[in-house]
């Protein structure tokens, strides 16, 4: 595992094993906030920021927990860290960019229950990444999430104008679209070693 280069980890998390389209993490915001392009952008960036913060914190906490042989507390500790990181991002966003804060609305606190973030913390622990590798992994995952949600939002804005049968409007259509997008990302699978 130590042999993996930082660039490879980044690309792997962002494209080959894209968090949303290949690992099914963070589907709720992916389906919920991808209606408009600019909200999708901000959601992607906010999530990436929380990912980076919680990845660093999770790395630190895990070293402490392993040191004291308290691994069974890992899950509770991680989720507490993520909740605080989200709170932090929320407060600073409210202070520095109120417009964005209003646009994201309920989805901002919901980043806490975004499985992509907890998943990131858990995966980096399972794979025993060191500090720099964890940071590269978090950046890759954030980039991948942003890429997926922005692509989806672009497609859905176009789809608004399309003439689809009334029965397939809404969630069903969105899922089919996600399926096709995921199919496209399968093409990258040959790049990785997993």
């Amino acid at each position: 595992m130590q042999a993996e280069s930082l660039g490879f980890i980044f690309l792997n998390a962002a494209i080959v094993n894209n968090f949303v389209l290949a690992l099914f993490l963070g589907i709720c915001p992916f389906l919920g906030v991808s209606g408009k392009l600019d909200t999708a952008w901000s959601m992607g960036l906010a999530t990436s920021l929380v990912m980076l913060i919680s990845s660093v914190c999770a790395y630190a906490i895990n070293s402490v927990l392993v040191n004291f042989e308290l691994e069974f507390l890992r899950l509770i500790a991680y989720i507490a860290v993520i909740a605080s990181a989200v709170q932090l991002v929320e407060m600073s966003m409210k202070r520095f960019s109120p417009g964005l804060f209003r646009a994201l609305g309920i989805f901002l606190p919901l980043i806490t229950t975004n499985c992509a973030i907890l998943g990131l913390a858990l995966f980096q622990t399972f794979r025993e990444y060191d500090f720099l590798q964890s940071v590269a992994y978090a950046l890759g995952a954030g980039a991948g999430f942003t890429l997926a949600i922005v692509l989806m939002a672009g497609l859905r804005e176009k789809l608004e104008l399309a003439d689809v049968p009334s029965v397939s409007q809404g969630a069903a259509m969105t899922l089919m679209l996600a399926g096709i997008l995921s199919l496209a990302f399968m093409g990258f699978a040959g790049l990785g070693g997993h």
Partner: protein
Amino acid sequence: MADRKADPSPIDADTFLEGLWRENPVFVMLLGMCPVLAVTNSVVNAIAMGVATTFVLLASSVLVSLLRNLIPKQVRIASYIVIIATFVTITDYVIQAVSLTLYNALGAFIQLIVVNCMILGRAEAYASKTRPLKAAVNALGMGSGFTIALLCLGSVRELLGAGTLLGFPVFGENFAPWVVMILPPGGFFVLGGWLLLFDWINQRNARKTEEAEVARAG
């Protein structure tokens, strides 16, 4: 605390049944999508995930309901998450002890039950406002609805993707499996397909009721 007194309505069949169909967490509310799509590539995984989630939902609903008058309003979400995380840790260790194959197949998704919005949503919207027994009945209904939805996806994906059901071959020798169904895109397609089917049924029923009313009026 007066606003969080248990609501007096009795436990009836609807307490259980609403989770199965009218408020099905997957097909109607679109909650807890991540495990729904990720672990339903075979029937066995789907059942295991459904049972594990139902257990966590049931246990945390009862505990949240018991503690509803002790938890201060300001820290309720954090408290619910800690309660849920505790039960998920228990489930995680139990599955690891019972079957290592299953544990490896489900991977991190057992621990990710913590962030299943369905469980937190039920704790916040239902269990914190009602009696333990009623919360338990409702949680069982929701859990069953979730498990059935996972089974719907899992059986279709395993049948088409591998030509087997619960590991037994169904279609005979000459069947060429649709590998894409087991891969990630298949999850999106199958769930989209089921939603289309349910939308179609609902729309047809609505049209029938409308026609019946027009006929009666005319």
